[in-house]
């Protein structure tokens, strides 16, 4: 008990210094937590991918489309359970900053492949009946105040013209990683409209989402699909949904790496600050440590006092930092709108914060503790605090 009392009272001895150090730690661990969460959000799409889903796209590039008739050919490949066409729409809602993902999809096969999108059966039926109908995610609906029955106008960019959709259903997440910031509408509506406005662009599909019967045979099915279209005018590249999503992340991997590095640089900086604080603290108390040793306390007791104080300060800073990561993360996610569809502080992030606190507290105390433990008593007694 006296050991912890000494640690606590020593930690509170220079209140201003300790407060400023704790403040620095809070800011560092909060920043670290947020940056790690951003990295996690970047990979959320890949983490939310299902193993039974494959994506078939044009082998040349994602922006090059595939003919619609591929759908039937893919469906005929052995091991394929279902196929859905999908196109990235990229419309503008009111103004360009209001970004959210919009997809034209084959609704029945598509939503049967995504059981993690949970919606009301009646609303879904209403959506199927309405060719201009749309299904929106809960987060998107909350962000822009969309309700069932609302008309959502979008200005086309890839598909020019003004488009109008009616919200017929709102889906909820089935899993923590489910993206509820998306907007879906009928692929047929897109195709019909393009047939009228730009016939040469009709019957063109961005990607096919393929549901496989056996997840252990995804590689074989992918190969079989691509083999079908080998040496055709539009060769395909089929990969798992996760690989497809990671491919997207890889395009911006440099940013992710930079964020990750910055998050650890922040920890390194606070480690230096903390080490300086502990070095000053131990230097000032050298005569006290010498006194303790003189009256019979072991060098390891003195070292443990310093380690304890350092870990206590780092622990408090980390605890407050972790505590703040959640509300600040929520606030940040709201401010970012639908830019990060899934922005959640993960258990791994909290564990990393705790590990960093342990490392900061421990490493910062190493040199002062070793010095205090090794200092000769007579030298320590001469030291001026």
């Amino acid at each position: 008990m006296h050991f912890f009392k000494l640690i606590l009272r020593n930690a509170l001895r220079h209140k201003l210094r300790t407060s400023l150090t704790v403040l620095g730690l809070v800011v560092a661990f909060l920043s670290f937590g947020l940056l790690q969460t951003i990295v996690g959000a970047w990979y959320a799409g890949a983490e939310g991918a299902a193993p039974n889903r494959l994506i078939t796209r044009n082998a040349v590039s994602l922006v090059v489309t595939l003919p619609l008739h591929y759908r039937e050919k893919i469906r005929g490949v052995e091991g394929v359970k279902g196929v859905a066409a999908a196109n990235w729409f990229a419309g503008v809602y009111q103004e360009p900053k209001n970004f959210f993902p919009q997809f034209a999809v084959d609704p029945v096969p598509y939503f049967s492949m995504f059981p993690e999108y949970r919606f009301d059966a009646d609303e879904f039926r209403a959506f199927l009946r309405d060719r201009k109908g749309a299904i929106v995610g809960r987060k998107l609906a909350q962000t822009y105040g969309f309700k069932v029955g609302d008309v959502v106008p979008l200005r086309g960019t890839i598909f020019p013209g003004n488009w109008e959709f009616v919200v017929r259903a709102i889906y909820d997440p089935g899993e923590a990683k489910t993206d509820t910031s998306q907007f879906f509408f009928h692929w047929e509506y897109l195709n019909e409209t393009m047939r009228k406005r730009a016939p040469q662009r009709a019957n063109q599909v961005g990607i096919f989402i393929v549901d496989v019967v056996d997840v252990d045979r995804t590689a074989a099915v992918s190969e079989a699909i691509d083999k079908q279209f080998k040496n055709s005018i539009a060769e395909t590249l089929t990969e798992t949904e996760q690989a497809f999503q990671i491919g997207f992340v890889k395009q911006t991997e440099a940013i992710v790496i930079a964020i990750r590095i910055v998050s650890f640089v922040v920890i390194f900086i606070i480690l230096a600050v903390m080490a300086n604080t502990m070095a000053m603290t131990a230097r000032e108390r050298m005569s006290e440590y010498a006194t303790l040793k003189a009256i019979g306390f072991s060098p390891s007791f003195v070292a443990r006092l310093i380690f304890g104080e350092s870990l206590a300060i780092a622990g408090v800073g980390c605890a407050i930092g972790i505590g703040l990561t959640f509300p600040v993360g929520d606030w940040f996610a709201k401010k970012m709108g639908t830019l990060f569809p899934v922005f959640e502080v993960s258990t791994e992030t909290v564990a990393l914060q705790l590990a960093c606190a342990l490392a900061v507290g421990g490493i910062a105390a190493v040199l002062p503790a070793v010095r205090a433990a090794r200092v000769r008593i007579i030298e320590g007694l001469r030291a001026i605090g």
Partner: protein
Amino acid sequence: MTGPQTFPAPIVEIRNLSKSYRRGGQIVPVLSDITLNIAAGDFVALMGPSGSGKSTLLNLIAGIDKPDGGTLRVAGIDIAHMSEAELADWRAENVGFIFQFYNLMPVLTAFENVELPLLLTQLTASERKRHVETALEMVGLADRMAHYPSELSGGQQQRVAIARAIITDPTILVADEPTGDLDRVSAEDILTLVDRFNGELGKTVIMVTHDPNAARRARTLKHLDKGVLIDAEGVRP
């Protein structure tokens, strides 16, 4: 001071003790060929000019420094060849320290400071409490137990330090300029207290001092000059 007395068997036996320090690549001898006996229950004052080696000799006797040569036995135990860990245990049991600047833990109360050495013993919390209260009563600070050092005068802080020094009933009390930081009145009080522990409790006291008034309280006076004991016979001034 009283007249010359004879004491029982020596509690501190020093034979041909030497000590030197290395300063800037040079070896500086501090103590040379010291031979000295201190009897149990004696009150010895070590005097001498600055740099004469008196504090070094005190540190060696207290086991917080190690000699280069010679033998040093305290209560029959050779402490010159003990390891650091053994010395720490030995000091906890056998030595009570009184420092010039009191060396109290500023974050602990008077009670907690005095209790510190007892944390190294097997005593229970209630036993420790009883011991500490007794010690603080003996130094006249029963009503200051909950005070922090910063709330006490220099004299009171030194009393707390004395209570801490005697709390484990050590074999010897070592005092390095115990009155060096005190005014005249407080210094007299402290010396009276040390004198009392020596006279009434039979504690062996070894004190380093520059102050002739303080030295007069001792029963035995030893002078050191340039690392050499110059009145090894213990003749009183």
